[in-house]
């Protein structure tokens, strides 16, 4: 029995050593970074692909679907960037509410053939748009690359819900209230605009 126990201990030690060794090996090889990178590039790839889908699909329902996917992927990205609450908000508000609004809008407007419901403009417009957006991307990228961000500290942030709540209800209470009023006004405005004139209903 004692032997068994000591074997177990030994085995455990060995296991620990193996684990330690593997972990050390992985850390030395930079595996956490690799995982990080894998997650980031995976999520980023999804975001970009979905975004491309939004602008390339001919069927607007597909576009809307891609948009939703892009939002959800973005939510994941936020969680990856340790903004868990924001990620949840993103998925709920964008992936849920906004997507639904858009889909409802599509439903209210397009009832016939959906296959060409998302037409593009002419070739000239595509070329011009391509040039402008490419240049814009280049200039932004150049700005990012040129900027000497240096060694930025990584802080161990408090729990993001608590932190946000603290800020929102203390320092940024006024913008918060304003945002609330804005939402209310947008709601009222949307209803009034979409409702149309009295005469239309009568």
């Amino acid at each position, binding site marked *: 029995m004692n032997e068994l126990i000591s074997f177990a201990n030994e085995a455990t030690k060995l296991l620990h050593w193996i684990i330690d060794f593997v972990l050390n090996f992985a850390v030395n090889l930079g595996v956490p970074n690799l995982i990080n990178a894998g997650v980031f590039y995976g999520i980023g790839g999804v975001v970009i692909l979905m*975004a491309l889908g*939004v602008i390339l699909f001919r069927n607007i329902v597909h576009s809307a679907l891609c948009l939703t996917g892009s939002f959800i992927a973005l939510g994941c990205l936020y969680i990856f960037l340790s903004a868990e609450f*924001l990620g949840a908000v993103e998925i709920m508000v964008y992936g849920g509410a906004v997507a639904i609004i858009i889909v409802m809008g599509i439903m209210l*407007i397009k009832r016939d053939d959906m296959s060409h419901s998302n*037409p*593009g403009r002419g070739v000239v417009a595509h070329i011009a748009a391509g040039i402008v957006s490419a240049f814009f991307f280049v200039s932004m990228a150049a700005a990012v690359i040129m900027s000497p*961000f240096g060694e*930025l500290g990584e802080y161990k942030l408090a729990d993001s819900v608590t932190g946000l709540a603290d*800020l929102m209800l203390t320092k940024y209470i006024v913008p918060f209230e304003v945002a609330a009023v*804005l939402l209310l006004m947008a709601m009222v405005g949307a209803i009034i605009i979409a409702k149309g004139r009295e005469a239309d209903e009568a």
Partner: protein
Amino acid sequence: MIDLQKAFELVVNIGLPHCLLLSAVLFSIGLFGLLTRRSIIAVLMCVELMLNAVNINLVAFNRFGSMPDHAGQLMAIFGIVVAAAEVAIGMALAIKLYRERNTINVDELDELKG
């Protein structure tokens, strides 16, 4: 010669520039769509993409920035709020437009013509 090790590290060590570049790509895609789509709903969706690109920046700066609080995320939340309001109004306008003019194509709306 390119220092392969350094290049590998640059690619693998995810940091602020990566997020910013992702944001730039997303923004540019949104911009391209904004300029080429004819349907007002698609245009609206592209605007949403651009807004989200901005939000990525905010969150990334908050994550990798030098201030140990959540102000960046908060700004992103406000951005989301505004975007939500915007999309609601935008959709309402699109529906209204469709009722009035029976079209939602942007290139047929040229009231701004001087």
